[in-house]
């Protein structure tokens, strides 16, 4: 069984004009480019990436996918996203390695159970499989859990969401890139967008480190850099704080955890990758910054938290930690918008640390938005203007303060 190595990343000529330009070679950018070409026949498209594809959040996340969000504005998008992975695997002819192991979200108080019940009820109302388990059922599902009274936050129960799991993040990046190339999209790595030219309220061109590109449509999908880019180039302000989020893996182990397990009280989530590493992460550093530096505190905290939930993991070793950037909005929901206030300017950002789960489906609808000029209903709740109207979405119950000015 031998296959030919085909190019995942073609070398494209740099054109001076494209029908659409995508800023950012991450998952959202690549997915949008892919669907523009595939679904809408717009293949004179360039993806402009400052470093290399998948450099940012696309390659730094912990690859968890699920559809058990809190609000009905979010649920349908994530629900469709979850169904898309197997379809996309077939369509791209690239194994995205969707591992449908299910997610268990632990609760450590009655208040947390209440909060999970809202999610579970909302999911069930939308026909999504999600249910509440008591502590014993959690233990049956995940035998390594300590459900005794010993931990500082004893386990009260959990939200079990069987359709979720993990997807190989690099595979999605490369699969989409290959799909883009196949459909004639150009991917320009090591190229930085330096300006967006606007005339009479319309996008006219962009400037890059490799020259000017004439285009009428631009998507800002620059992840953590989106807000700065929008502000510097178009004077558009977005309520986004950029924070470092860290994740890490243990040395590879034989199968030990068969689910994605997370806990809000302990600020931890963990799953075992196909390679056998326990991948874990959770909260963000509490101060905004644009570095991906690690902190001594974080890895120690993670060890403390994990070994509380899973005492056996005291015998595992952390092997590697890394950092990524999360572009957080005050309501932990993304900003997806277009033609406002500049015609031809679209934006898909503010995903914080959930950008992976719905990347492909968002790209699909974003492509429709860019191709038709009509915002698909599923994306409408995410407009930038909701912040000006003080109409936050309720993706988390808790008030979010990334910095005191949020």
């Amino acid at each position, binding site marked *: *069984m031998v*296959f030919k*190595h*085909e*190019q995942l990343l073609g070398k494209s000529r740099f054109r001076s004009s494209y029908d659409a330009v995508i800023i950012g070679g991450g998952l959202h950018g690549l997915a949008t480019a892919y669907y523009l070409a595939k679904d809408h026949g717009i293949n004179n498209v360039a993806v402009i990436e400052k470093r*290399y594809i*998948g450099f940012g959040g696309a390659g730094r996340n912990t690859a968890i996918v699920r559809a058990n969000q809190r609000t009905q504005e979010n649920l349908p998008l994530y629900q469709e996203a979850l169904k898309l992975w197997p379809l996309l*695997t*077939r369509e791209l*002819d690239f*194994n*995205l*390695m969707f*591992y449908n192991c299910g997610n268990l979200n632990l609760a*450590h*108080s009655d*208040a947390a*159970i*209440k909060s999970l*019940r*809202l999610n*579970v*009820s909302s999911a069930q*109302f939308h026909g999504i499989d999600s249910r*509440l388990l008591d502590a014993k059922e959690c233990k049956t599902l995940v*035998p390594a859990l300590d459900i005794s009274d010993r931990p500082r936050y004893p386990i009260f129960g959990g939200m079990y969401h069987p359709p979720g799991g993990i997807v*190989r993040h690099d*595979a999605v990046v*490369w*699969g989409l890139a290959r799909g883009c190339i196949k459909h004639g999209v150009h991917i320009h790595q090591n190229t930085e967008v330096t300006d967006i030219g606007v005339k009479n309220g319309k996008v006219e061109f962009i400037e890059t480190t490799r020259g000017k590109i004439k285009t009428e449509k631009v998507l800002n999908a620059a992840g953590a850099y989106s807000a700065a880019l929008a502000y510097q180039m178009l004077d558009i302000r977005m309520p986004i704080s950029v924070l470092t989020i860290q994740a890490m893996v243990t*040395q*590879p182990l*034989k199968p030990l955890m068969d689910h994605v397990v997370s806990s809000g009280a302990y600020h931890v989530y963990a799953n075992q990758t196909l*390679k*056998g590493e326990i991948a874990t992460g959770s909260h963000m550093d509490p101060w905004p910054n644009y570095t991906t*530096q*690690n902190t*001594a505190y974080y*890895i120690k905290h993670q*060890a403390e938290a*994990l070994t509380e939930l899973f005492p*056996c993991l*005291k*015998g*595992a*070793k*952390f*092997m*590697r*930690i890394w950092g990524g950037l999360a572009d957080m909005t*005050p*309501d932990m929901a993304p900003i997806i918008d277009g033609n406002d206030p500049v015609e031809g300017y679209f934006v898909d950002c503010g995903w914080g640390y959930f950008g992976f789960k719905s990347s492909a489906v968002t790209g699909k609808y974003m492509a429709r938005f860019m191709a038709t000029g009509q915002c698909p209903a599923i994306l409408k709740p995410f407009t930038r203007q909701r912040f000006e109207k*003080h*109409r*936050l*979405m309720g993706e988390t119950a808790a*008030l979010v*303060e990334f910095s*005191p*000015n949020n």
Partner: protein
Amino acid sequence: MKRLSQLPTCRIDPEKKVFITYRGKSYQGYEGDTVASLLYANGIRIFSRSLKYHRPRGLYSLDGECSNTTMAIDGIPNLRTETTPARHGMTVKAQNVVGSPEFDLLGIMDRFSRAMPAGFFYHMFHKPPSLWPLALKRIRKIAGLGTLRHDFVMQVRFDEIYPHTDLCVIGGGPAGMSTALAAADQGLQVILIEARPWLGGIFDYRPAKYLDGFSLHERAGVLSQRVTENKNIRVFLQTAVVGIYPDNQITAFQVGGRPDAYKERYVEIRAKSLVVATGCLERPLLFENNERPGVMQVGCAHRLARTWGILPGKNAVFCTGHDLGLEAAIDLFDLGMEVLCVADNREDGQDAELVAELKKRNIPFYRGWVAAKVKGKKAVKAVTISTVSGTRRRDIPCEVLVASAGLTPATGLLSIAQCKLSYDNHTGFFLPVNLPERVYASGRMLGFHHPLSIEISGRLAGLNAAAGCKETTNGLRKEVEEQLATLPGPPLGSKWVSPPGKGKKVFICFDEDATLQNIDQAFSVGFEMPELIKRFTAAGTGPGQGGIPGHNLPLYVGQSRLPADDPPSPTTVRPPMVPVLLATYAGKNLDMSKRTPVHDLQISSGGKMERVGGWRRARYFSPDKSIREEIEAVRTSVAILDASTLGKFRLHGPDALKALQRVYVGDMTNIAEGKVKYSAMCNDDGCLIDDGVVVQRGKNDYFFTTSTARAGGTIEWIRFHTRYDGWDFHLVNLTDAFGVINLAGPKAREVLERATDSDVSPEAFPYAGYRELLILNTIPVRVMRLGFVGELSFELHVPASYMITVWKILEETGKPWGIRNFGLEAQNILRMEKGHVIIGSESEQRTTLHDLGLGFLWHRNKPEAKTVGAAALKHTENQKGRLKLVGFEMEDSASAPPRDGSIIVDEKIRGYVCTARYSHTLNASVGMALVEDRLSSISERLAIFEDDCNGKLTYARVARMPFYDPEGARLKI
């Protein structure tokens, strides 16, 4: 095997035997042995099977650069036996084998390598779709290295310490020791960290000459003694540095020795200056089957003999690219190993003396020759050496192949410390450039090789570090700098990478079974940057942290893909530098919860404690969690609640009022003397973030309370929102200085009266009043008359040190009325019956003050205050389509209340239940919910969808709140 324990360099104690069990057999070694050296001495050559191809793997390095010798010890998987001291009674198991390491059933995987090129997973197993779930199961089983049982219990203890120091030196070799000594002589406090159990580094095991007839080994002893005796130097042995963070925060872990009460301890150091003197690793030599058991690095072979008294084999071929290789060959020959030949990939540049010594021993020496291939399946049988151009080849049967391409500085920690590394054409090293402030490097990692150069470079670094710590070094630095300039500089390094004639199994990364062919495959799919290649081939992502591929990968990429003039660039190294047990990171894992002053009383009264934020609080006072009696006591008699977790603050100074006006939505200008003012704080979206009461205790002197959750953030909040104003006020957090007792119930006054001489009659102390009283004529307390639970109640703010006393007094004076405790759950129902909200329970990030029906708290006529959230409150005042807080009562009075978090639906979700309970007081199931405004009018029917209801909805009607005592008469008695 007979051990060479008489060697002066040997670290085993032949008097103390150690036995460990491996594969059911007991093996003998000595104290001082590592698990790997003990097994090797007993003839074990295959330690593990590789991750992907299940190839046999043996001892290759001795400092854990790869996972070849990782094994499970006493149930803990993936331990590096080459750095784990052998302890009597250990049970060691091989990993990732089906059968035994020698006969592994999955060894067959090696034959399918053609089917497993780089990235093969992405192209396989997904067609047809039904195949994938089955393949997945198989892949999971095959993947992973060691086994950790889900019921594994770590039996030993762990510890953590946080020392501070002037200078931290990483590396206890000649450079590090010289650094430490030089700095200590300047008066600095120094921490010296060494990963091995002894100091000495590259000098430790070598009998080669130093100066004046001394050997390097003897010199190591001298330096080590000086360091140990120096009072300014604290030495950490067997301590591996794993992370370096900004401002010289260094994390490490120390392996406990015999007298230590811990197995390992986490060490987090803060240092003013940092010197990295970690020396060099060997750069692996790439050739076909370069990881067969029997192939090992020069240092490994040499130290095996010199440190552990084990000859690596009967005979060996040496293929090397640096003088240490020649030195080792000579020394091992002298120790009794047959050296069949020495091949050196350098055409010239060798130390002439060493070459002469080889000649003296009749050891054939081949300049410009390298290993091209190893023959043998489970052990080295023969090696094919070749000229570097590949024109001539020769097969030499042998037992051991000692191989290394060259040296490479151990820059991993510098990379972690965010140093820039740049390729140096002379040494072939990635050398640090632009080191961060107060970070220095010294010794071999800068390319030095001559023993004196190493030491003097160390000395210079020590003086630089002293200067960095603001110590004056009186021109000494310049002197030493000049001295260093006269000594031999870094020698020319070997740049040899690709073998002559490419093989199929040339491993660039052992841990991930990544071959040169895999790297080429990555090139062919379009990945040309080392970081992307790393991701695509996984090279360098294994437990060895790039110790094996770290240098070869960028060099190979550079030679294969970059224009001739472009320097290669190294890949990122990430912490931890060495894998660390989670147990070690967790350390003592102390529980940091806060306790109120009456914590123990709460427990002795039967309180069931739960974590609430950082606190522990009593939720129930009955084992069965029934709270009926607690509620009845409050409603009909009297009960007390420990509310000490409330935030308490003093705000005073000329501009105190302005600050209050900024953050509170209410008007604070006229708080009457002896009165409390209830108010709320909002964020910029007008959402409720806090509520509490404010009292004015004097001119410009306020005392206010916040919710428990906000106590921690209040000072920051107020400071932040007044940061541009330059106002003069003081803000003091008194949360821990005062305990709070809520004395509630119709008999509360009687109880209080008996404890104080002050007049607490309704006339003297009306509802919403504030008084400062003395309890039993002695203890000053601040008392507020409030009514959160809907009854007459006094909130006593008691100096924390008096809390227990006052608590007991009230219990005593309350006896006639059967006073008892009530907990949080009782309070939850009591306040719900009264329609009072708890932030976070009836509010969330979307709910404004208006949405909660608390809009009346907003004083709109103070624009000059620029109150936080005022603009949003104005904007959202009449906004349609928002969620509003309503009370509801179940339609069927017999039906149980819906569980909290159930949703309210029609064809869409319209809201959710915040709190609902059966109320004994009202004999009804009532609750509060956030619902869309159009469903918020009284008597509106709400359809409730609870999880697992199978479509069977329950119904409630919106009801007027408060449910209990709507006129508020009970508060005013």
